[in-house]
């Protein structure tokens, strides 16, 4: 029948048929590719949806993909308890999830922890039973979670999305039921400028992730697919719906801190919240929030200082575990010994004026930058760079700090407004472009003022370490909830240090600390010499340079804590050494985990700088499993033994919404009712955008408003044709081969 038809066609007819066929084939391929995407992005709709008028009062409603249909969101309350002993803090975060709906719910809560936190414990409380979580390889933990979820068992999974962003997924919360999840972590507190600093992050601020790129590719099966080449492949994992400010604040937090300093306490202060301090003797104190609970919309910051002159310059702690001693040393180098005159500086100031900096943050940043400009000496040189998704470099190259140039720069800074996306890479590259790399008369310092709300941290770290040269990078974290992982990671890659400014009133004090670091010589070539004959393993490795007021902090694993540890460094050509007798170490708990956490951080730094990813993944996995720590490759999972959700009942999944961080301007970050194609984090061809279902979570706006010139299309179809052509040829080859096989 087919054969008959084919022979009946005359040649010209056959030729036109070929074109029709070719067009249809291409169309089919494209449709197949696009409909797959559309399917993948379509949000499933189950039971449990309701109209807005059906909801009771005080229920937070989430929009769904069905217009006019809503779902009551699971609610969460958080309690934070911190026990501080010396410079080690143990924190227990209790998250209480309540399902206000009639159906069964799965809640996904994106929450922050300090970027140095070693998360080791997960407990799930159901009624009066506690279920302890196990540490598993990430994929395996996810598998256990999915299985338990399908079987109707209660299960909680803690996954690390960034070293400072985690998600807690809880499946099978019954109608009107409450599930309590406890997470515990250990951290070594930062000591700087004579004070210890505790930071409890309470909200993950919306992040800007550079858009992904979409391209057509051929699949192994011979079909065609869309390749989303994404620099932030996990953008979905750490984004959550953000509440409009007029909705009111949710997620209440209570907080209590028990402090055993081990030295007489001086001032105890919080720059972020009003606190009540109850002192117990000279060395201990209990700290709570003055107003009971607060909404989770800004980080909690606490500092405590030793009473003047009582701070020992050395602290040495040890923990014996599994046949080895784990040590943590904190050594404050003597100040003032070698305060030599520093060389003149070439200061490059970079200001982030993207939308996330809108409101309070941009005022802080501008104030800080103006202070920094006034601080320049006439022998210094400077330049100013501002960026959002565009970039301006004020002077073609660094200029002398004359009154005229500074006045010009001040005028420029005053005119800036916060808007647009956070394309940080071009700004970093511009700042690190050194036109005079051989210059030894000036010290080149890049001061980077930002909230760090980006999702492509690792890409940025890699760019910093590869193009650093003689420059040093100092990050200044701005706002109520800056991304500490970016701030400290960028400073580490840039061999500088970081400063946080949480409030407008703090600008001058914090900037004064930064100026001390910028203007005083830096301690370089730090090295630790361990007792000979003992197999020691110390992290971080190598030790970072020390700026004014910073201590050496290192952790080590050693068979026996005995012998002498010698630290040495150079302070502007003046050598410094200090010896510690390891037998003096005081016993403490949790040091082994801090050591493991430091080792993981150093390994991850290596990976970012281009180390062998497979080898590093294996090493991180081994350390994390041994120390029971959550990491990029390991997760904690806790499963109830009995199933509670009856078979046949639907389970609906909700991402829990987050507050907009305090001081943020909603309109600047998300725009007012922007159309979908402008919100989408992924840049897709227009044909695709129309097919995508509307999601709940608005992503940051990435494109400036306003229309002027219509720029022409700047790409040809040649690559697309090549791809389609090659696919066709492969298809033909497959068909012919199949035919031969059929004959044989």
């Amino acid at each position, binding site marked *: 029948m*087919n054969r008959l038809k084919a022979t009946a066609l005359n040649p010209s007819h056959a030729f036109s048929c070929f074109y029709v066929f070719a067009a249809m084939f291409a169309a089919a391929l494209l449709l197949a590719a696009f409909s797959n995407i559309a399917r993948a992005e379509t949000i499933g709709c189950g039971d449990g949806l309701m109209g807005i008028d059906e909801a009771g009062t005080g229920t937070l409603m989430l929009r769904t993909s069905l217009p006019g249909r809503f779902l009551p969101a699971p609610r969460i309350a958080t309690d934070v308890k911190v026990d501080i002993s010396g410079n080690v803090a143990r924190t227990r975060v209790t998250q209480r999830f309540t399902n206000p709906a009639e159906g069964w719910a799965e809640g996904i809560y994106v929450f922050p922890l300090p970027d140095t936190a070693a998360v080791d414990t997960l407990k799930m409380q159901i009624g009066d039973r506690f279920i302890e979580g196990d540490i598993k390889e990430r994929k395996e933990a996810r598998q256990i979670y999915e299985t338990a979820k399908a079987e109707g068992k209660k299960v909680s999974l803690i996954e690390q999305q960034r070293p400072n962003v985690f998600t807690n997924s809880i499946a099978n919360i019954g109608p009107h039921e409450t599930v309590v999840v406890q997470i515990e972590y250990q951290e070594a507190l930062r000591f700087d400028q004579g004070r210890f600093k505790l930071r409890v992050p309470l909200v993950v601020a919306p992040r800007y992730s550079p858009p992904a790129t979409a391209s*057509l590719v051929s699949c192994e099966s011979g079909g065609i697919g869309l390749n989303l080449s994404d620099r932030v492949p996990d953008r979905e994992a750490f984004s959550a719906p953000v509440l409009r400010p007029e909705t009111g604040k949710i997620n209440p937090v209570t907080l209590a801190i028990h402090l055993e300093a081990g030295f007489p306490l001086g001032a105890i202060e919080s720059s972020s919240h009003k606190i009540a301090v109850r002192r117990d003797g000279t060395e201990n104190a209990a700290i709570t929030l003055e107003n009971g609970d607060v909404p989770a919309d800004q980080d909690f910051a606490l500092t405590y200082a030793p009473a003047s002159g009582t701070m020992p310059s050395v602290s040495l702690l040890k923990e014996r575990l599994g046949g080895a001693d784990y040590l943590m040393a904190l050594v404050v180098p003597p100040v003032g010994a070698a305060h030599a005159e520093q060389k003149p500086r070439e200061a490059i100031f970079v200001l982030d004026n993207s939308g996330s900096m809108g409101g309070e943050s941009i005022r802080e940043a501008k104030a800080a930058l103006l202070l920094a400009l006034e601080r320049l000496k006439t022998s210094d040189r400077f330049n100013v760079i501002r960026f959002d*998704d565009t970039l301006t470099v004020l002077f073609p190259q660094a200029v002398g700090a004359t009154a005229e140039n500074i006045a010009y720069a001040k005028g420029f800074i005053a005119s800036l407004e916060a808007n647009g996306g956070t394309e940080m890479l*071009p700004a970093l590259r511009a700042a690190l472009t050194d036109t005079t790399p051989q210059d030894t008369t000036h010290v080149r310092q890049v001061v980077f003022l930002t909230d760090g709300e980006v999702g492509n941290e690792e890409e940025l770290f890699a760019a910093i370490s590869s193009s650093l040269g003689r420059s040093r990078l100092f990050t200044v974290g701005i706002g109520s909830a800056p991304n500490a992982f970016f701030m400290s990671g960028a400073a580490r890659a840039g061999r500088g240090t970081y400063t946080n400014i949480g409030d407008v009133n703090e600008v001058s004090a914090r900037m004064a600390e930064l100026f001390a670091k910028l203007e005083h010589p830096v301690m370089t070539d730090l090295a630790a010499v361990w007792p000979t004959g003992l197999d020691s393993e110390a992290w971080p490795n190598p030790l970072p340079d020390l700026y004014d007021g910073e201590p050496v902090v290192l952790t080590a694993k050693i068979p026996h804590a005995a012998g002498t540890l010698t630290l040495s460094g150079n302070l502007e050509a003046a050598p410094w050494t200090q010896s510690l007798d390891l037998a003096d170490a005081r016993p403490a708990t949790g040091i082994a985990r801090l050591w493991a956490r430091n080792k993981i951080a150093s390994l991850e730094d290596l990976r970012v700088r281009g180390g062998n990813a497979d080898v590093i993944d294996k090493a991180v996995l081994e350390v994390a499993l041994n120390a029971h720590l959550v990491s990029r490759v390991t997760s904690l999972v806790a499963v109830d033994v009995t199933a509670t959700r009856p078979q046949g009942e639907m389970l609906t999944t909700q991402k829990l919404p987050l507050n907009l961080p305090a001081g943020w301007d909603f309109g600047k970050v998300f725009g007012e009712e922007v159309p979908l194609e402008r919100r989408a984090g992924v*840049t897709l061809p227009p044909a695709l955008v129309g097919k995508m279902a509307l999601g709940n979570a608005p992503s940051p706006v990435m494109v*400036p408003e306003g229309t002027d010139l219509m720029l022409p299309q*700047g*790409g*040809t179809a040649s690559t697309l044709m090549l791809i389609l052509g*090659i696919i066709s040829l492969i298809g033909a080859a497959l068909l012919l081969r199949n035919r031969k096989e059929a004959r044989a």
Partner: protein
Amino acid sequence: MRRPLALALALLGCLLVAKGLYIPAKAALAQVLLERAWVQAQAGATDVKPWPWADITPVAALLVPRLHERAIVLEGVSGQAMAFGPGHMTNTAAIGAPGTAVIAAHRDTTFRFLKNLAIGDLVTTITADGQETPFRVVSMSVARADASGLDPQAPGPTGARLALVTCYPFEGVLHSPLRYVVIAERERPARNLAAAL
């Protein structure tokens, strides 16, 4: 049934591959011919055409010394002109004249090098009248095609501005609403520079 289908597919594949290879080859060849005609025109020859049936007007040469890149810019951004080389948008300032001149080209042919431009790079234009203008790259950004913020009247701080535009993302295959925009400002004459610092 299988065999004709396979042959049809093979033929379609060959045609598409040929066309896919032809487009960049044509652009490369056109640039060689354009450059030859340009050099002859600069040397004083009149009425030189890069090829006998050419219906396009070269307006400037564009040079990037650091990257060893050069291209002959054509007037207009019609699909036809852009198949051969970068096009100067007719509704923007003339190249090197006060205002912003916008030059656009394909990311996969003549403006493939745009992603390698860095801040501080020198970009020189030579217009048909022999006028040579140095520009310095000051910024690059990604913008929607209809919201680039480019204003043809804006002269920039030094009086003349060049905007080099291509499709973004660079490795993309499909049409994209985004453009990569490199802004270069005319280099100040040396004495002005000294005064400005």
